[in-house]
């Protein structure tokens, strides 16, 4: 079967990675895939693994012509949206095209649903007092595929299929790990903490509150990191938030964004991955590879001085954090900094054993963050406990059906199963 993947991540490329994982699983069953991607993801395809067509932002509505020609040449029998949300957003916002023009091709469509849309209210709390409505079209699409993680292991619906996402990278041998750390200049017994910053997390957003938090949060994070013992080194991959320069220069290693293979080796060589993005595919990759993960969220909303007192009373902020908060307010809750996604993610986080595989702390709980980081770096009991949880969870995920089997069941829901079963 010829399957056309619309994988249009335009900020990070996590969604495209999920599409690639599904395509690999289908290729193993003899199916052919062609990808339509945004130029940002080109690097993922440089090895020539899958044929692909690259869309450039300046193409605007002309992309429909590109689509026409890919459809005419590749003759897909199914279109996969990898993922649904990105597809809806990118086609309408970036290319100014009604995303559902693809229905004119009369080709069955299977959406990949990374956010459990059926359980949501189709609105994302994206910034302070700002909700982003999202198309409800998926409810009429007859089926959906949910990658696990981040989605939960089961679905209440008969037409929605959670599949195991082959998300882990190959574990890194101790020889490689030692070599890489030496190459970086990390002493033998030092601990290495990894941070990753993507372009979309920089203060170039369309919302003033978003930009303020994008600008301010790295300073608070750097303050917490500075409190760690001298034996801790930091490696930041990707963008370089200015505030990171306050970390001791001899313990800070800055790496530009890099190819996935390089990134995986680096990720596999660190002791702890710290992120402010609970939905990050890098977090998934870390915990599925056996690397410790710490997610920092903010569940506190604060707009004025009375909130400051309340928050201080509850969390016993240190001086730096208190000043930081006074300077930065208003703040809004977030789980995918600098985007909110706080309430939106809640249903998906309920009864989700993925959350056992890493630690979570609150941004304003400085003492909690410091203690947790130290435990995750130095306390054998804590490290082993998370490793056990990661292994348990990996077992649960691998017991799920793979992408290709779930895809076939989705096809059955669309009344096309028999035609394509092998």
């Amino acid at each position, binding site marked *: 079967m010829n399957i056309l993947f619309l994988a249009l991540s335009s900020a990070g490329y996590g969604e495209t990675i999920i599409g690639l994982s599904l395509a690999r699983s289908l290729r193993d069953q003899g199916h052919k895939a062609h990808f339509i991607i945004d130029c940002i993801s080109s690097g993922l395809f440089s090895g020539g693994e899958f044929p692909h067509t690259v869309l450039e932002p300046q193409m605007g509505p002309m992309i429909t012509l590109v689509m026409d020609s890919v459809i005419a040449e590749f003759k897909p029998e199914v279109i996969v949206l990898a993922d649904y949300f990105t597809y809806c957003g990118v086609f309408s916002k970036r290319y100014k095209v009604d995303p559902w023009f693809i229905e004119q091709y009369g080709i069955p469509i299977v959406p990949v649903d990374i956010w459990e849309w059926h359980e949501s209210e189709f609105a994302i709390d994206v910034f302070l007092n700002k909700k982003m409505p999202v198309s409800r079209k998926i409810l009429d699409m007859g089926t959906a595929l949910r990658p696990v993680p981040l989605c939960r292991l089961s679905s209440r619906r008969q037409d929605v299929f959670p599949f195991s996402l082959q998300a882990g990278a*190959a574990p*890194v041998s101790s*020889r*490689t790990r030692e070599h890489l750390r030496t190459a970086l200049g990390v002493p033998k017994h030092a601990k290495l903490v990894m941070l990753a910053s993507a372009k979309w997390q920089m203060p170039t957003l369309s919302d003033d509150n978003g930009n303020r938090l994008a600008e301010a949060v790295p300073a608070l994070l750097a303050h917490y990191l500075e409190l760690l013992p001298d034996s801790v080194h930091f490696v930041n991959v990707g963008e370089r938030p200015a505030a990171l320069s306050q970390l001791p220069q001899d313990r800070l290693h*800055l790496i530009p964004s890099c190819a996935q293979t390089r990134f995986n080796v680096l990720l596999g060589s660190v002791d702890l991955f710290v992120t402010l993005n609970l939905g990050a595919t890098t977090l998934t990759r870390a915990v599925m590879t056996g690397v410790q993960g710490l997610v920092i969220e903010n569940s506190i909303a604060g707009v004025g001085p009375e909130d400051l007192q309340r928050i201080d009373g509850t969390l016993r902020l240190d001086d730096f954090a208190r000043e930081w908060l006074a300077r930065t307010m208003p703040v809004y809750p977030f789980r995918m900094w600098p985007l909110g996604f706080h309430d939106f993610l809640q249903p998906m986080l309920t009864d989700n054993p993925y959350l056992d595989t890493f630690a979570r702390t609150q941004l304003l709980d400085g003492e909690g963050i410091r203690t947790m980081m130290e435990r995750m770096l130095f306390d054998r009991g804590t490290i082993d406990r998370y490793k056990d949880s990661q292994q348990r969870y990996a077992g649960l995920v691998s017991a799920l059906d793979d992408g290709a089997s779930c895809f076939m069941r989705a096809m059955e829901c669309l009344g096309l199963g028999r035609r394509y079963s092998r």
Partner: protein
Amino acid sequence: MKQLSLHVTDTCNSKCGFCVVGSPLAQKDAVHYPDLVRFLFENAEQGYTSVNFHGGEPTIHPKLFELLNLARLFGYPEVHIQTNGRKLKDSEFVRKLQEGGVRLFIVSLHGFHAETQDMLAQVRGGFEETLEGIRNAKRLGIPVRTNTVLTKQNLYELDQLVGLCGELDVDHVNISNLHPVGSGFFAIDGMGPAMAETREVLLPAVERLLAMNRRVSLEGFPFCVVRPYQHLSIEWEKRDIRMMYHGSVYDNYDTYMDQECRTYGPACQQCSCRGLCGGVYKEYAERRGWSEFAPLPAASR
């Protein structure tokens, strides 16, 4: 020169911090032996004057002698091996390689002091093995070209290292710019010298080598960094190298390196050498920008 070039293995018995192929990062050997055989076979009798085996470390390849036999069988006049030289400490092994058709060793020599090279290659005792390897090759009359990657760690012993090459009667000294890919991608901050530092030690070293009547070449340096010795750059001479790396064939290695690995910046716009000079390693420019480079006047070509 028309050469066939084979990346025969990803694995290595050293762990150089700047390893361009990232050998110490490789989780397994991704080289498929039948690809090597096919490549040798397909290019036989096409006028190649030599075959170059490189890696990783070719001398630890379990089928090295089989590959040498194939090269001879398919009519390639000579084989060159790029090596860290450690296994060449065994003179009998060197003799067998010579018997197998090896006519040149390109040996990595990254320090004058044992501690420097051993630290860079992350192998204790490796330096002495390499020196012994070079001596063994020379005793058997096999030419040796050394390759030195300039790093912050060996920069200020380059002059002594050049002297050592003279003592060892090395035939050809190649000095390379650190290419920030493979392990070098992670090592550049700690190991990559600034271009001004490079010039400060490189130019006197080149002068000394020329005075010693040694053949000398420079690899991967932007011309403006090595002027007035840009004519010693490997890019200056026309080479015809067809390479296989992980099953993919690159018809012209030098063109591939220039187009895929190097880039031009603002300084290059008015440079008379643009095109001949391959430019700056992409990853270097990405990390350190363009302020270290300046266009060369018209007479520089």
